[in-house]
Every structure is written in C-alpha cells, then in structure tokens.
C-alpha cells in the first residue's frame, strides 16, 4: 500500500515538474514548485514508513518549513517586480 501511495506521489511530482517547465507565467511555475515541495514532504513521510526508518520524519518536517519560506520569498520578490512593471506599462 505504501508503494501505491509513493507511486502516485512520484507521478504527481513528475506532472508538476512538467507544468513548471511549460508554465506560461511565472506564477504557474511557483505553483508547480509549491506542489512539488509539499509532495516532497509527503513522500518523505511515506518513505519513512516504507523502509521503517523513522528518522526520515525529521527531514519531512524540515522540508515542509523550507518549502513554505521559499515560496513566500519568491512571491515577495516577484510581486513587487511585476506590479512595478505592469504599472509602468499601463500608465
């Protein structure tokens, strides 16, 4: 059963990576990377029980936190940049 869930998470990570490579806007890419990071934490939790190595759970915790901080940092960067650009375009 763990193998099935791990397989589903792997497939979704692949699909999210395709979306991150295709994505027409930068927000699509950020969305895909956010999905990828959340699925990484889930996959680490599943793998911890798949192989019976419970110390992987600490890695999953660290990944969850790093993913959140990373997405917010990238968003703050692009939000300021894009609004400045669109303002100069419109006015």
């Amino acid at each position, binding site marked *: 059963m763990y193998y099935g*869930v791990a397989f*589903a998470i792997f497939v979704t990570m692949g699909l999210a990576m395709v979306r991150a490579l295709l994505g027409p806007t930068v927000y699509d890419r950020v969305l895909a990377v956010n999905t990828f990071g959340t699925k990484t934490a889930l996959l680490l939790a599943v793998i911890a029980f798949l192989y019976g190595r419970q110390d992987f*759970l600490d890695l999953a915790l660290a990944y*969850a936190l790093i993913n959140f901080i990373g*997405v*917010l940092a990238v968003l703050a960067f*692009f939000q300021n940049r894009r609004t400045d650009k669109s303002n100069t375009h419109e006015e």
Partner: protein
Amino acid sequence: MAGVIDGLSWLLLLIGGGFVLIGGIGTLRLPNFYTRMHAASLTDSMATLLILSGIMLQAGWSLATIKLFAILVFLLLTGPTASYALANAALLSGMKPEETGRTVGDKASAS
C-alpha cells in the same frame, strides 16, 4: 481491532493517493492559472490530511505519531497561506480570472 485500524489506514492512504493523482493531473491539464491553482491547492490540503492520517494510524502511539502530527499541522497551516499569497500576487500583478474578469478586475483596480 488491529484489522479494522489496518483497513481504515489503507483506505485513507488509497483515497489520499487518488487525491494526489487528481491534483497532479489538474495542475497539468486545466486551462488557465486560477483553475490550475484551485486544483493544486484543494487536493494538496485533502491529500495531506488523508495520507498523514493513514500513516498515523499505522504508527500507533509513539514518537513518530507526534512528528507526523507536527508535519500535518505545519502543512495544513502553510499550504493555504502559500496559496493565498500566490493568488494575491497573481491578482495584484494584473492577471484577471477569465469568467468573472469584469467584477474582479474592478476590485483589483480600485484597491
């Protein structure tokens, strides 16, 4: 009793895996940004809840359950926050949702 808990946890893991797949397919296939974000963020929360609950049932009462619970709380707090920040950034940058472009566009330009 153990069989019931095992079956319940397998059911939760199975449904969670289904949600993960649905989210991945929706993120790739839906037509515009806001629909893609709705697919990704909704299934993210649901799949996180289901899969981590399923693993927690397998772990029983131990330190692993507490760690899993911490991961669950962090992911459930940060996932919707990141989704909100992403949608807010996209809206502020002038990307309009297509079906309701008129009303939301007015709000965005007024604020």
